[in-house]
């Protein structure tokens, strides 16, 4: 009798385990093929009409007198809502990494933005310490300055090479042990707003017009996914606020030096050129792919 009861309990437990595994499998339904790029798209929401996965492979960001080439890929991913008058609101990536943080090397390193010669004695001594310990590399990381919902996408403008294709609120994080953890150009309250276009810009002087490019589109999955290669988004009419929080406790000494080194960062002195490969999918198609592959 005892043996029989044990067997029943064991069988029930086994069945329960199987059911749990099945449920877990269903929750982890996965995207396959060309759809795998959209794993972090919030496609589960029926409000999401399109999924976007854009990789900026190269380009440059000029901030005042400093030019930082984009050498490490930066990914922008998420979904877009139904477009209103051509502009679609953005929904951030499900893993929270809407704009990936890819530290880019700042040419000239620490001495390029905090020159020893023009620094106060205390700063000079500290710089010497960092130089002696080979801590001279400075990275510049692009970060979202506002919630993803502030990003705006216009697919019509993107394709037509006119108007703003992507509005992106960003801030630039300057990283080096000497600069501390809070050295930023731009913030959530004072973001750098990039109005990126595939068309031609109209910047104030001294900048001159530059042109983006829609790129070459190819349809995949029978028109469910659009792959755009050689897409170039540009903006050289943006302004940037002064840097803040650089140098930790010596911020009051270091931040002004960096500000002086960057030079004028008002509109007409800055440039963003982003060279991208862009995948856009219909949200419904991604949902269907997910449902078909439990």
């Amino acid at each position: 009798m005892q043996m029989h009861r044990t067997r029943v309990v064991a069988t029930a437990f086994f069945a329960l385990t199987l059911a749990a595994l099945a449920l877990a499998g269903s929750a982890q339904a996965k995207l396959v093929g060309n759809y795998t790029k959209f794993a972090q798209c919030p496609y589960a929401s029926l409000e999401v009409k399109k999924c976007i996965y854009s990789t900026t492979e190269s380009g440059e960001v000029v901030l005042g007198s400093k030019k930082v080439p984009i050498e490490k890929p930066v990914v922008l991913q998420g979904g877009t809502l139904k477009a209103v008058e051509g502009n679609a609101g953005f929904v951030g990536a499900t893993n929270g990494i809407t704009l990936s943080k890819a530290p880019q090397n700042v040419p000239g390193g620490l001495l390029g933005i905090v020159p020893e010669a023009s620094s106060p004695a205390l700063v000079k001594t500290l710089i010497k310490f960092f130089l002696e310990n080979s801590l001279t590399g400075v990275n510049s990381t692009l970060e979202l300055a506002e919630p993803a919902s502030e990003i705006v996408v216009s697919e019509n403008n993107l394709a037509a090479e006119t108007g703003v294709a992507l509005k992106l609120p960003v801030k630039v994080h300057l990283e080096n042990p000497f600069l501390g953890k809070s050295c930023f150009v731009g913030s959530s309250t004072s973001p750098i707003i990039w109005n990126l276009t595939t068309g031609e810009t109209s910047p104030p002087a001294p900048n001159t017009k530059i042109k983006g490019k829609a790129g070459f589109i190819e349809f995949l999955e029978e028109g469910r996914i659009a792959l755009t290669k050689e897409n170039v988004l540009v903006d050289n009419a943006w302004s940037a606020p002064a840097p803040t929080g650089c140098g930790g406790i010596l911020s009051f000494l270091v931040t002004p030096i960096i500000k002086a080194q960057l030079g004028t960062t008002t509109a007409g002195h800055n440039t963003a050129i982003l060279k991208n490969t862009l995948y856009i999918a219909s949200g419904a198609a991604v949902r269907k792919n997910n449902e078909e592959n439990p």
Partner: protein
Amino acid sequence: MRTKSTAISAALAALVVLCAMFATTASAAPAWKFETKSLEGTEVILGGAIESSMTVPGLTTKCEDFLYKLTIENASGTGKGSLTEMPLYNCTTNSKACTVGTIGAEKLPWASHLATFGTTNYIVIEGVKVAIYYEGEECVLGETLVTVTGSAGGSIDNTAETATFNASTLSASKTELKALSQKIEWNGLFPTEAFQWHREQALSVS
């Protein structure tokens, strides 16, 4: 003195030869003809494309009924035309996800002219603008306006009385159509038959 006079004569002769060459080029411009006689006044060509499709890599759009109305004339010996109407019906795509919601020609009339490239006569249509709205919940182009713009050259076959548009004819006539900011393919076979004063007369271009 004699040398100067010879030089002037030679220059004059060269000029005469050049003028003659240009005159030959001008007279060689193709014109619309009915029963081998040059068209005088205007005529209307009205018809429907036998086959027509537009392709962006990965997506082809076909229209079963591609009608057109073209008013033609010869101006200074060269065939000209004005495409005044081009309704498009029963358009589909090769994709299960995308259907054609609306499609229509914009900014009509479109000017056209006859031209010779190599040994072939072409009709070149300029200022082409066709707006397409694709539909389909799963279609990535849903909600996106696709506009086809540019110019297109089609080779004229006097025997079949047709104009053929394809990648080769567009390239040969130095024309191109663009959609989504990139060059697209357009294939079409258009009969060229008069529907006004010269009905059932053989239409040719030479």
